[in-house]
């Protein structure tokens, strides 16, 4: 088997799939945290889940990753529910990019990226070919991968973390606050690049964030979560023009730090 063919492969060859949440219900010690949450992200789409702290978005993220159990409902990838997979099988189907990249501090970028395939007994040549392919895709310099996380910039860490999440070629990627820790200038550059990386990967992407700007820029559709319930799912335009609830408008207005051009004029 030749791995060079993998390196030459194009975006169309990456795995992708539909992510669904159906009537998910979760409570902690009798207190409801998520109530009847349903969400469908079609194959290859980029979706943002947005909500302020306490909205239940972190709980949703953790149960989607299979880290915590939930009482009712289903989480499915390509119509197969989480419960039909082993933890390892599920982990290989969702590429997770934690906040600030979440790289393990004791090992180099390359070792972080190779950790999981190594544990799955991939041969070194296959790992190297995959690393090289993804490195080119996220636009990282080879020398960066030899560094330890504390020697990398915020943007470099984020890219290494995306490589790590994509190593097992999961159909779905899950990103937690991808821009939160970056300063504004790097943010705008990286936003552009992230968008193009997602396009090149062609994966189904769920971004969990509290930041409306980030959600609007990166995702085609947005779901607003408030007090454990989905208030509205739609494009930014839909949320802006036909808010399902007064909370939608107040959330959007609260996040607009700068006035509209029209308002200034």
């Amino acid at each position, binding site marked *: 088997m030749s791995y060079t063919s993998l390196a030459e492969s194009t975006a169309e060859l990456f795995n992708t799939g539909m992510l669904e949440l159906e009537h998910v219900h979760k409570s902690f010690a009798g207190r409801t945290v998520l109530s009847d949450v349903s969400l469908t992200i079609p194959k290859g789409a980029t979706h943002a889940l947005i909500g302020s702290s306490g909205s239940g978005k972190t709980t949703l993220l*953790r149960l989607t*990753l*299979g*880290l915590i159990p939930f009482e009712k409902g289903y989480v499915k990838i390509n119509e197969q529910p989480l419960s039909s997979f082993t*933890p*390892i099988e*599920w*982990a*290989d189907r*969702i590429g*997770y990019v*934690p*906040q600030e990249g*979440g790289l*393990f*501090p*004791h*090992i*180099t970028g390359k070792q972080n990226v190779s*950790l*999981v395939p190594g*544990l799955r007994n991939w041969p070194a040549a296959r790992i190297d070919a995959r690393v090289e392919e993804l490195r080119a895709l996220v636009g990282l310099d080879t020398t960066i991968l030899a560094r*330890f*996380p*504390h*020697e990398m910039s915020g943007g470099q860490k984020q890219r290494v973390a995306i490589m*790590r999440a994509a190593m097992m070629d999961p159909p779905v990627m899950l990103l937690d606050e991808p821009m939160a820790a970056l300063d504004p200038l790097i943010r705008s550059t990286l936003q552009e690049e992230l968008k193009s990386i997602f396009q090149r990967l062609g994966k189904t992407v769920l971004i969990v964030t509290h930041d409306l700007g980030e959600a609007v820029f990166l995702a085609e559709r947005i779901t607003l979560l408030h007090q454990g319930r989905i208030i509205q799912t739609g494009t930014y335009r839909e949320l802006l023009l036909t808010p399902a609830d007064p909370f939608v408008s107040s959330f959007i207005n609260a996040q607009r730090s700068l006035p509209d051009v029209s308002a200034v004029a």
Partner: protein
Amino acid sequence: MKKLLILLCVFLFSSAMAADRPIVVGSKIFTEGYILGEVAAQVIEASAPPVPVTRKLGMGSTGILFQSLSSGAIDVYADYTGTLTEAIIKNPDLKSQAEIQAALAKLGLVMSEPLGFNNTYALAIREAFARQNNIRTISDLARLKTARAAFSYEFMDRADGWPGLAAAYHFAVPPRNVNRMEHSLTYQAIDQNAVDVIDVYSTDAKIRKFNLRVLDDDRAYFPVYQAVWVARKDFVERYPAQWAALQKLAGTIDVSTMLDMNAEADIEKHSYSQIAAKFLGAESHTSDTLTSRIAHRTVEHLWLVAISLLFSIVIGVPLGIAAVRFHATGQAILLLSAMIQTVPSLALLCFLIPLFGVGTRPALVALCLYSLLPVVLNTFTGIRSIDPRHLENARAFGLNSRQILFRITLPLASPMLLAGVKTATIVSIGTATLAALVGAGGYGAPIVSGLSLNDVPTILTGAIPAALMAWLAHGLFEILGKILIPGGLRVRP
């Protein structure tokens, strides 16, 4: 992990089960004991048929040697009739040799004929003071009201020591003239004319060194402490030729011969094997120089530290991990290992002797227990200080508990863990000197015998190498840190 534990257990018990073992000669922990032990060892080595001999010299006091004889850890050693009746038979009224032999036979022990000298308590005074006051006997001294005395604690407290002596001779010395002192310091006191009379053992080399006169016990007050060999009955039966060779020494070592040999060891610093060989009229065939002695002790000391450390890591790291996982158990583990630390080392060794006998094994157990706390505590603290998000991320990536432990948790805790092992090592190197108290050898042997003789150079032959070893260990851990701690944790921005 399981395999390793089984292996360690096998190792622990294998030494007890070794079938064809050499003859083991023990000795008490003072100069005369060492010399007589060496004499016995060389006599057995020279006898036919040849049998290998193991020397376990300087094991401790009568109690420990009796334990070792009973358990079979040693086969033969030299002791004194007075000590045997008091400490082992516990019947000081037994006087005749036949009575003592019969009482020992009931304990499975055999006693030889006396070797020829009586190492009993005696009173000693400065030669000048003796001439000035014309004193030859204890009766002469008893009449002197102005004499100032310094007696050891043991001598002051034993019924057959000062209280009985003062009554038997009607001493005129007022009580305020009698000082209680550490025995080894009484020689300094009498030498500097701070006191006039001290208690001594009749064969003590320092009698010569400080030019003291031993007073005649003209009323035959002091009990008799004839030196004899004491052996296990099964040793006497299995090795009749060797026992006969030892018996042949009966009556050949008189007080002055023993005094000479003690002086050669304590004052001229000849090695015990040289002194024994000279007495036996043979050339010493063991090249027992200071360097070879230190080398031998280094091996013993390293062995003690390395094995006990291995055990405390194998036990302590899993305990530390368990302490993080199970909260209540964890607190109990931490409290218990902290409590062990507060048990004084001598007390701990006392508890361990009935369980593990004497020699290397109780010493290893004690050292292992003492080095447990830093290992457990640092493992616990190291793991607890890891950002919990890393552990959750690892689970999200599909790592199982074992992979998380070995790939994430332990590497991230490794700087702390290694610091704990380093502390344990350096503490162990120091504490291992106490192993000499139960006959495990190491650098403690010269320290303990040096302390009892108030002999600083001897103490230093143990203390300096121990300090050097601690220093080397420090350096070793610097290197180990570079190898074992993952690169990303070594330099923090």
